[in-house]
């Protein structure tokens, strides 16, 4: 299967501690890579390196190494949902979604955005300023973009940093199901979580096991 991501010889040292050394892995399309490890083992740092915003990790990361046209901007094809979920508190969920889509160059009809917000359980909160929402609801604003029905080519990988925190049980199950569905449709997911994920396509990479 086509590789989506290839990481070679990743090395991270912080405060005289090696978080990980000579870490190499591939992610194929349709695969879910579940990063586990204790707090402080470098999961977030690794994800940030994968999307290209961390300068503290050495090594090579290449996105879509097998695709014929080498995309200069692989970020266009990746949804990265970080620990800080990029939800602007002064804006409503609808405005937050519109901005996230604009930054990705995606034009989605308004009805689709409303549907996505309804799916994550924000119906009736579309126009409420996000600072009036609870922590879990703010999290859902960021996660709503994962429920957009985009063509499989448009966003080919999700990089999710602790997507399940602050969500209630029902929302956790819904997101897990959505992740598995997305992988089944050919997308790749790289995520960190302390929850387990049951699917035959999940591969687990444990950080901090060696030390």
């Amino acid at each position, binding site marked *: 299967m086509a590789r989506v991501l290839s990481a070679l010889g990743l090395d991270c040292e912080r405060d005289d501690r090696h978080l990980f050394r000579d870490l190499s892995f591939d992610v194929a399309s349709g695969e879910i890579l579940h990063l586990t490890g204790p707090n402080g083992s470098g999961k977030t740092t690794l994800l940030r390196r994968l999307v290209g915003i961390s300068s503290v990790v050495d090594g090579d990361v290449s996105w879509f190494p097998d695709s014929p046209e080498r995309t200069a901007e692989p*970020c266009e094809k990746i949804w990265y949902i970080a620990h800080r*979920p990029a939800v602007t508190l002064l804006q409503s969920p609808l405005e937050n979604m519109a901005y996230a889509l*604009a930054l990705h160059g995606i034009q989605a009809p308004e009805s689709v955005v409303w549907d996505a917000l309804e799916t994550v359980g924000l119906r009736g909160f579309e126009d409420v300023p996000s600072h009036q929402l609870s922590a879990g609801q703010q999290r859902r604003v960021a996660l709503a973009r994962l429920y957009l029905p985009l063509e499989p080519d448009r966003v080919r990988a999700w990089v999710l940093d602790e997507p399940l925190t602050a969500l209630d049980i029902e929302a956790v199950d819904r997101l897990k199901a959505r992740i598995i569905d997305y992988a089944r449709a050919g997308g790749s997911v790289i995520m960190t979580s302390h929850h387990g994920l049951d699917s035959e396509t999940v591969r687990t990479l444990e950080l901090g096991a060696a030390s």
Partner: protein
Amino acid sequence: MTFLPLLRSVFRREMQLAYRRRSDLANPLLFFLIVVVLFPLGVTPDMTKLADMAPGVLWVGALLANLLSLDLLFRSDYEDGSLEQMLLASLPPTSLVLCKVWVHWLVTGLPLTIMAPLLSIMLGLPGSALPLLMLTLALGTLSLSLIGSIGAALTVGLQKGGLLLTLLIMPLFVPVIIFGTGAVQAQVAGLPWQAHLAMLAAMTTGSLALSPLLTVAALRIAVGD
């Protein structure tokens, strides 16, 4: 989607946020007003002496007011994680930065420029100098916002970056204020002022070309650490 509609939606977001944070933005404008109002009370009510000092007072006030507002430029985007998404956007980050700085100028530099004529009456500045004063302030505050964005980006990752921001940026602000006040003073004194204005405009265009690149580089450092 093409480039321009995207940029328009980014611009709309920034204007919206500026409107919703309007109390933060009123702060520098009030500061400017207070500095200029207190000046004649504290120094001298003599109109001829005040008229000599007027361009300098207005410029210093505008510069400090601009400096006050800079810390907010990237702070909230950094804190909620939007900045990371901007650096990963499919639009060039320089265009996003330029958009942010442009909005910053629209809500600080432009109001300062518009307030200046009213305040210059209080300082006894001859009316003939007004068009040039406004022109230099408009150009100057734009270049202050552009240069300041580099400092704001460098210090955004620090908890208390305010003092460092001032130290970093002050030396770069000095040439702008020299040529800005120089132009107005020369015109009041009946001397040729075009050279000062040309230098100021050159600095503005120079910072327009260079500062977005430097700001993005600084933001990458702040976010990447």
